[in-house]
């Protein structure tokens, strides 16, 4: 508050014009209104901290940016978070604490486990809309999770986008073959059954289906299985880095010309940074433009400017940052639509506002207008690693699933 008064005072003195002073003071005056709270259970430590710190940065930067734009309908935005170490019980405790003290309109959940666990409480409270790090297919069940949405395609929808791309690569009437490789976790298994069903619809044969134990493991036996079926494509899911590198390196050592693809959390620059030249040709499905892509748009430019302003030394911002920013963008849009309709910020009203999003221009964060379907944004694009350039480059148009 004191800072705002100082800011206002400086602006008044500097401009020396009543009109200008009134204009420029408007955002600051907005800060006096009741804030709209974005809450968050954020994994700043623990196994997901590599993404959590960027998620936190994305939410912080977005909040600063939206406040610099006058907040939402003149109301300031406040971001309140707690570190959860990616543990469900701590995420739940953080939610209860933040809900009790700040009544957040929207909330960032750090895991599928947390979002499923908190669902009944969220449903009974009825005043918070939640999204977060999870792209779990289960969350598209509007009956069970009416107040939770996915800030992009679900994992099953990601597989759908990948399979559409693979189907497009078929030549002379022959469909490519595919193998699914996934971790033995809830995360890993999420899209497999739907992926197989979608592959069958598209006429793509799933020639192998490999589950790996989570953690640091030797996968040479699994590679031997893949050598026998020689898939044209291998789709990974449920990993961040390892064992994707081992599959790629070993299969290439065997002389296979298989192409490798992955979903959101295994399609960040980490793969390029850690694998170097071995990452070349790896493809990922990504619903957002990469921070260092050649794409642009008013919101994407604003994101880059804010990121640069908040930490000029940071350079590239990972996909977790982009994802967090997009989450907050959706929250803003939903809150704005609800307030514009003269309704209260209840979970029901906000969920209805979310469902009303159709052909929404995200200002370049996503390259085409998007429409919400089953509380998700079923859109994405296939990007391929150019190891020499050290970045992902688009190899498909934007694919919006019906």
């Amino acid at each position, binding site marked *: 508050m004191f800072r705002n008064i100082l800011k206002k005072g400086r602006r008044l003195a500097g401009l020396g014009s009543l009109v200008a002073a009134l204009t420029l003071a408007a955002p600051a005056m907005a800060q006096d209104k009741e804030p709209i709270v974005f809450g968050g259970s954020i994994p700043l430590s623990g196994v997901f901290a590599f993404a959590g710190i960027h998620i936190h940065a994305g939410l912080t930067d977005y909040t600063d940016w939206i406040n610099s734009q006058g907040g939402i309908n003149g109301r300031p935005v406040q971001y309140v978070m707690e570190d959860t170490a990616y543990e469900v019980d701590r995420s739940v405790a953080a939610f209860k604490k933040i809900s009790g003290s700040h009544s957040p309109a929207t909330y960032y959940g750090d895991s599928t486990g947390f979002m499923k666990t908190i669902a009944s409480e969220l449903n009974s409270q009825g005043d918070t809309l939640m999204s977060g790090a999870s792209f779990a297919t289960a969350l598209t069940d509007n009956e069970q999770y009416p107040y939770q949405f996915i800030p992009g395609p679900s994992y099953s929808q990601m597989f759908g986008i990948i399979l559409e791309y693979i189907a497009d690569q078929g030549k002379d009437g022959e469909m490519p073959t595919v193998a699914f490789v996934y971790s033995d976790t809830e995360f890993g298994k999420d899209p497999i059954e739907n992926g197989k069903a979608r592959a069958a619809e598209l006429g793509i044969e799933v020639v192998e289906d490999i589950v790996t134990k989570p*953690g*640091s493991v*030797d996968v*040479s036996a*699994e590679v031997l299985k893949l050598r026998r079926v020689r898939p044209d494509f291998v789709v990974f899911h449920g990993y961040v880095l*390892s064992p994707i590198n081992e599959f790629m390196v070993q299969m290439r050592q065997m002389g296979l010309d298989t192409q490798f693809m992955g979903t959101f959390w295994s399609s960040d620059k980490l793969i390029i940074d*850690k694998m170097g030249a071995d990452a070349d040709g790896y493809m990922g499905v990504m619903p957002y433009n990469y921070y260092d892509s050649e794409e642009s748009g008013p919101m994407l430019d604003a994101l880059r400017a804010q990121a640069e302003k908040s930490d000029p030394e940071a350079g590239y911002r990972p996909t977790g940052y982009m994802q967090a920013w997009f989450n907050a963008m959706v929250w803003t849009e939903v809150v704005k639509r609800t307030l514009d309709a003269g309704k209260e910020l209840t979970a029901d009203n906000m969920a209805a506002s979310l469902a009303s999003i159709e052909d929404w221009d995200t200002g370049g964060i996503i390259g085409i207008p998007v429409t919400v379907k089953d509380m998700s944004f079923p859109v994405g694009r296939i990007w391929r690693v150019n190891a020499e350039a050290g970045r992902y480059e688009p190899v498909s148009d934007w694919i919006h699933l019906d």
Partner: protein
Amino acid sequence: MDWLFFGEISLAGLAMGGLYALIALGFVIIYKATRVINFAIGEIMMFAAYLFLAFAGGMELSAWIALPLAVIGGSLLGGVIEKTMIRPMLGESPISVVMVTIGIASILVGLVEFIWTANPQLLPSFLPREPVFIGPLYLAPKIAYGFLIGAALLIIYLLYFRFSRGGVALRATASDQAAAYSMGINVRRVFNMAWVFGSLAASLAGVLVAATGGLSPQFGIIGLSVLVVVIVGGLDSILGALIAGVFIGWLETVAGAYLGGEYRMPATFLVLAVILVIRPYGLFGTHEIERV
């Protein structure tokens, strides 16, 4: 039955089992000499692998300089842990000592996250990349060369324990601490030596396993897989650790290949359950083992 496939799978499993045997050896050396079940063995492996990353990746030293430095660093860590945290626990109940090792594991995870962050890492590639063929059987080069390096250390250890003064002192202490003490053996020094040697074996295995499967602060969980190996082989049996290590590595791989990755762990735990029923002290362990 595709025998070529079975042969290749078995070879991969046996090679991986060799690395399990090396970790198990580290576990057994410490237990045999000091009667401490070291639940931090996985984290000591992890720490050594991060040291390798720092030397070979961060400082850009040659991998063949970084490897011994990392292994020595890991073994010194074991020695320091023994001297500062385990030795003061002498005479306390085994449960208390086990809890200390679990605490050490947590501290090491926190330390690694603090220094190297929680980001997943890959070690700089340092093993030959050309495919290895044994007859018609393919073997992934990292596994093949990792096995050879691990086997070399195993042989050095076995010779050392058999023929050197230090090795005899260690075996004497393991057989009967009071008798060893009365014969003038510095038992405390032997305890420290056991931690240093045990951690050295684990550290080498840590770098080799991380070179294959990647590295993260959760890497130490592999220590739990090896716990199965040492219980099956016998907590105080070096021979048991070697045989059970190779066997469990083979079983895990074959079960994963034929039944699916989700059956790797159930297969090994089934063997563990059967062994515990038939021979509670392990295949090659002695009856005096005090269970905690």
